[in-house]
């Protein structure tokens, strides 16, 4: 009889035991692969989204919250910082580039980010359709947002779906970006001024101009004051001008508050600056500087505790499966000694007996691995559709080195569990075994 048929019939005769072992193996493989896929995906996303940002400056509070809300757009911002202060920081010679972010609104759960064009360049994003914004209330959409050029939208207050709508202001979509496989794909980008305007804050350009004007007025006032003694006739005129400017300023102050932004993404000129600049900001200002690399390490450590639990669970399941194969074959071996002795008497060599028992075990482990791999593929596909973060980041099942390591480890463990009873089975004393049974 063909050995494969004999193995198949032998496994079939222990169907319940074999099925349970296959299922145990497959569940172990399923958890191990899913865990690896999700961890890899998160790690990849964290790296790509945080690339090129050395320091984040924002309101005092949790540094992790600041990093998550400003870089990864997955948490609520700590608060706002005065634009004036942020501008001052960005002039620091240790800074290579500073990108302002004004957050606070969303459209259907997609965050609206008020920033400048450097933010688009930061992700090396390109326009797929339309153009970048030229004016306030023009908006560019990330690749994962189902919206087209020419559509008008109203933002809603808050960074998650369901806030009060800003119906009095609408944005016009003027461009859609190419996919970047980064957080940008799920953001709506506009100018800082657009976001400030909606929230009743002073336009940063006007603010700069206003400050400039104010300085000019001060100087003018000063000059005129110097001339005051000599030019009495002009006194009235000066007072008139000055009063007009003051009235204009008061009008601005009464209708618009000082501009504020949520965060400043900073790329420094040197690694030393990554240490010195946060120290300076945290000690000398009312703002907070957070180091994304440090905060993400903290986050992954926290996440790692959870993933370690799941890793242990998958190792536990696989170990049970391997032990089940071992106990299934070894325990069954006692009952099969008579059968094996008969096969030996009929001329089956020791090698052939070893091969038959070992292949029974490896067939079970192979079936478990195969089923587990198929299950993990489909489970990941389902998860990537129902779990929002995976869905919006278009997570894909990746066959990587870790995947092969999991498969190989389980297979080797299963083979070892099969080899021991196979060796024992091949070494039986045929005559003794038959004598015991006769």
């Amino acid at each position, binding site marked *: 009889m063909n050995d494969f048929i004999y193995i198949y*019939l032998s496994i079939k005769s222990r169907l319940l035991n074999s099925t349970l072992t296959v299922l145990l193996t497959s569940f172990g493989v399923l958890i191990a692969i899913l865990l690896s896929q999700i961890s890899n995906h998160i790690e990849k996303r964290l790296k790509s989204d945080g690339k090129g940002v050395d320091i984040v400056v924002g309101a005092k509070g949790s540094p992790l919250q600041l990093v998550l809300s400003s870089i990864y757009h997955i948490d609520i911002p700590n608060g706002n910082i005065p634009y004036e202060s942020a501008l001052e920081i960005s002039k620091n010679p240790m800074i290579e580039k500073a990108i302002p972010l004004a957050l606070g609104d969303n459209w259907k759960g997609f965050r609206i980010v008020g920033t400048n064009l450097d933010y688009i360049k930061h992700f090396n994003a390109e326009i797929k359709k339309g153009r970048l914004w030229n004016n306030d209330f023009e908006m560019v959409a990330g690749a994962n947002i189902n919206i087209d050029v020419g559509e008008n939208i109203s933002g809603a207050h808050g960074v998650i779906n369901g806030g009060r709508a800003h119906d009095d202001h609408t944005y016009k979509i003027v461009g859609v970006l190419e996919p970047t496989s980064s957080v940008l794909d799920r953001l709506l980008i506009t100018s800082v001024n657009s976001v400030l305007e909606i929230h009743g804050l002073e336009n940063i350009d006007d603010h700069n101009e206003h400050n400039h004007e104010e300085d000019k007025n001060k100087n003018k006032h000063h000059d005129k004051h110097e001339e005051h003694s000599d030019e009495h006739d002009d006194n009235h005129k000066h007072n008139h001008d000055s009063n007009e400017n003051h009235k204009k300023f008061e009008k601005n102050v009464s209708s618009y508050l000082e501009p504020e932004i949520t965060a400043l993404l900073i790329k420094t000129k040197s690694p030393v600056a990554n240490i010195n600049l946060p120290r300076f900001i945290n000690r000398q200002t009312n703002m907070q500087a957070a180091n994304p690399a440090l905060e993400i390490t903290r986050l992954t450590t926290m996440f790692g505790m959870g993933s370690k639990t799941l890793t242990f669970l998958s190792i536990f399941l696989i170990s049970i499966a391997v032990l089940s194969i071992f106990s299934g074959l070894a325990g069954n071996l006692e009952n099969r000694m008579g059968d094996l002795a008969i096969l030996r008497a009929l*001329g089956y060599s020791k090698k052939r007996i070893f091969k038959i028992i070992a292949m029974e075990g490896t067939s079970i482990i192979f079936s478990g691995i195969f089923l587990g791999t198929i299950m993990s593929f489909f489970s990941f596909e389902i998860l990537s559709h129902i779990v929002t973060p995976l869905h919006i980041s278009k997570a894909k099942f990746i066959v990587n080195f870790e995947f092969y390591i999991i498969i190989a480890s389980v297979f080797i463990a299963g083979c070892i569990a099969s080899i021991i009873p196979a060796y024992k089975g091949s070494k039986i004393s045929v*005559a003794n075994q038959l004598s015991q*049974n*006769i």
Partner: protein
Amino acid sequence: MFLGVKNLEFKVANKTILNKQNFSISKGKHVLISGLSGSGKTTLMNLMSGLLKPTSGFVSFEENDFSKLTEENIDQIRSKNFGFIFQRLHLIKHLTVEQNILLGLNKDQSPNIDELLDDIGLKNKHTQLAKNLSFGESQRVAIARGIINSPKVIFADEPTSSLDDRNTKKVLELIFSQAKKNNSTIIISSHDERVKKFFKKIQEINL
């Protein structure tokens, strides 16, 4: 010499299980190994078929001295030339009648299984599981497994020990008729006096 033993002796922990034996068997001749229960009949059968290694002496089959062969060579000789019928039959219960019989078959042979099943009175029972067979049916399947390979030697260990006179006759006639087809040598070990009348040569084993 077709099959012979010379000074064949087997001991376990200095206890003699089988005294020195010397005899030879010609091709096509049948031999009954008789003796009291525990006299070493089964041990002699196991030594002759290469399932046991003797303490001293040797077994030769068609000029092959087993003491000079590897275990694998002896396995090959056994699979090609010997057939076994055991007292307790030892069918593999989760296999069907046909699958049990085919276990004894060499890869390079293709016997007519239908004809054989017809011969042993188990026509149309190919797919019946061994565990569902009666003792009589199981015995016939065990005989069929022992002869499927057209062996040169059929070893049958106490094939009639639990049978009544009628079934003893039936079983022995079946073994002899199948052996005749293949010109096989039958070596039966038995303490059953009823078996003696079927043999011309009887090898007595005495300790």
